[in-house]
């Protein structure tokens, strides 16, 4: 089936070339980073995690959201998702690959990455994150690929795949929970030290992931010759709406706890985020944008008439995606380090190289995603229409 990713229209190849170019640029800068060290990034002694880890955190959420398709279809027999569970699984696969790559490019000594397996420390959450992410990657590659193969051959999927799919449901929850534990288990970082971190992660994941899926489905409908079905898209939109609402609620809960209790160690990062601290305001506009986008999207999504229109729906989904990317990608990791344990406020600005590498990883992820979706769409197309699949182009 892989060969299906190797033939496509002109637009497909332009898109592939674009992604590949971005990847190569990123790779070039990664070579520079290997040579120079992580000092090439904007990270510092105080802000020791930056864009890379933030992307990792955000993408774990995207990966986990595949469960939002699998669960309704396999546990509740919600038929409308039948055609697109594979899309969710492939989204998960490419997201997890991006996650792993982001952790990899964040390592100071990537050549020693195998030490995590050679000298594992079971007390380390990072070790367990590695375990759950790898496991999740394998589960989704296997289930996605096997189901698509069976679809293509028009045979029923093998019996052993079912338990694996059921396993993927708690496993999806686990990847984001364990990732949240990376943060929420640290004693000196008041911003992260909250039990609601994992639920918050999951809620935002179940909003941003399905939002991305909706966008992808709309793209596939317009340019990819694949229609996921209005029913499935609307169902996804409802999931996004509820998850978004819950997510906003969780943030508000957090804000209440922090501000009403007034505990300085917990409060200061939030002040930094939304109002700036001691004149440091880098993230303030971003966070307000994120908040406004989230509320706007919520309004669109809860009004059925607006949600039904695909343009509005697309806008809302983009808003959700951007909002949560900002919230997780910028607003979650960095403020944990602000102020530093010694009261310093260093601000963090990613460097060009860092952004290039980040883009490179995204590009590779989207390259993989595009390839998967191309294969998927080609398989569906040849099943649904059968005729005229020839590419007679002059």
């Amino acid at each position: 089936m892989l060969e299906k990713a190797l033939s496509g229209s002109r637009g497909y190849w332009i898109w592939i070339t674009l992604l590949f170019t971005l990847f190569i640029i990123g790779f070039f800068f990664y070579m520079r980073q290997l040579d120079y060290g992580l000092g090439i990034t904007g990270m510092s002694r105080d802000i020791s995690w930056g864009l890379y880890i933030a992307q990792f955190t955000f993408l774990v959420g995207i990966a986990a959201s595949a469960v939002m398709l699998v669960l309704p279809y396999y546990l509740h027999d919600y038929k409308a998702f039948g055609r697109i569970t594979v899309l969710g699984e492939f989204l998960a696969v490419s997201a997890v690959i991006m996650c792993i790559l982001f952790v990899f490019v964040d390592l100071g000594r990537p050549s020693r990455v195998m030490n995590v397996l050679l000298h594992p420390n079971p007390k380390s959450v990072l070790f367990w994150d590695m375990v759950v992410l790898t496991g999740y990657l394998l589960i989704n590659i296997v289930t996605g690929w096997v189901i698509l193969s069976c679809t293509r051959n028009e045979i029923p999927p093998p019996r052993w795949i079912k338990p694996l799919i059921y396993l993927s449901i708690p496993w999806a929850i686990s990847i984001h929970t364990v990732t949240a534990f990376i943060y929420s288990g640290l004693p000196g970082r008041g911003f992260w030290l909250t039990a609601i971190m994992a639920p918050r992660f999951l809620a935002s994941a179940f909003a941003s992931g399905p939002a991305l899926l909706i966008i992808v489905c709309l793209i596939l409908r317009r340019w990819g010759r694949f229609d996921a079905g209005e029913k499935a898209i609307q169902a996804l939109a409802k999931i996004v709406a509820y998850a978004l609402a819950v997510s906003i609620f969780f943030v508000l809960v957090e804000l209440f706890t922090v501000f009403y209790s007034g505990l300085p160690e917990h409060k200061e990062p939030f002040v930094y985020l939304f109002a700036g601290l001691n004149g440091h305001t880098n993230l303030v506009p971003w966070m307000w944008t994120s908040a406004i986008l989230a509320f706007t999207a919520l309004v669109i999504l809860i009004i059925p008439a607006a949600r039904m229109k695909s343009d509005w729906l697309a806008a809302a989904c983009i808003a959700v995606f951007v909002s949560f990317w900002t919230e997780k990608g910028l607003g979650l990791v960095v403020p944990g380090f602000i102020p530093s344990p010694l009261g310093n406020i260093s601000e963090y600005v990613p460097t060009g190289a860092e952004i290039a590498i980040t883009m490179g990883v995204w590009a590779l992820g989207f390259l993989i995603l595009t390839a998967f979706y191309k294969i998927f769409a080609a398989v569906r197309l040849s099943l649904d229409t059968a005729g005229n699949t020839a590419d007679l182009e002059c």
Partner: protein
Amino acid sequence: MTTGRRDFLKTAGVTLLTLVFPGIFSPVGAKENTFRVGAPQFLKSSYPQPLTAKRWAMAVDAAKCPADCRDCMVACHALHNVPDFGNPKDEIKWIWRENFADVFPNEQHGYSAHILTDLQPPVMCNHCENPPCVRVCPTGATFQRADGIVMMDYHRCIGCRFCMAACPYGARSMNYRDARSHISELNKNFPTRAKGVVEKCNFCEERLSKGLLPACVEACTQKALVFGDVEDPLSEIRLILEKRFSLRRRSHLGAGPQIYYLL
């Protein structure tokens, strides 16, 4: 050699998942028992007796530190080849001085005596009893020795910087770039660190093994730093701590820091 076996027992129960891998990833897994050919017979008379303890700790009498004194830092950084990049972003430091308010954020109020708030106590790795950095390290590159010293194994560190996030004291520094060219005078008896690993104070364990006190303690002309075994009731540090009031940094976090600030 016992390293392999002990490590294995420690981790075996919980790392069943990875059990498949050592065979593949550790071709030298069988370890080199052959190197221990004979039983130890005698020590070279010239080799000094190491200093040992049940739990090493340090007491800092910050009041004794003159405002502009940097003796301990200079000694430590020179000895350990700590580079100076000249910018706070890439900065690496093992021991340095901070404002009282930043060292003890919870121990201040608007009316404290100037004699306190003007203090700039030296800070360093606290060699915690219950170190969060050791807990989070995915490879065991940061580990705690039996004598309480929290050690870095620079050969094993992958540079993930989880320990930096976990340390509530900001005691850890990352080698964001190559350090060698930024060390004014190399001490050939102590290695530099490769770029990409995290480093910090090691309580001069290399000196303890040769029977010497930590460099900062030795360098301090004011005798402001007292180093010893807190579990030894007769040790100097134990006697001081029993006699005087002391603070530990952010002790409410439960890490159990082993640097005691005397007031």
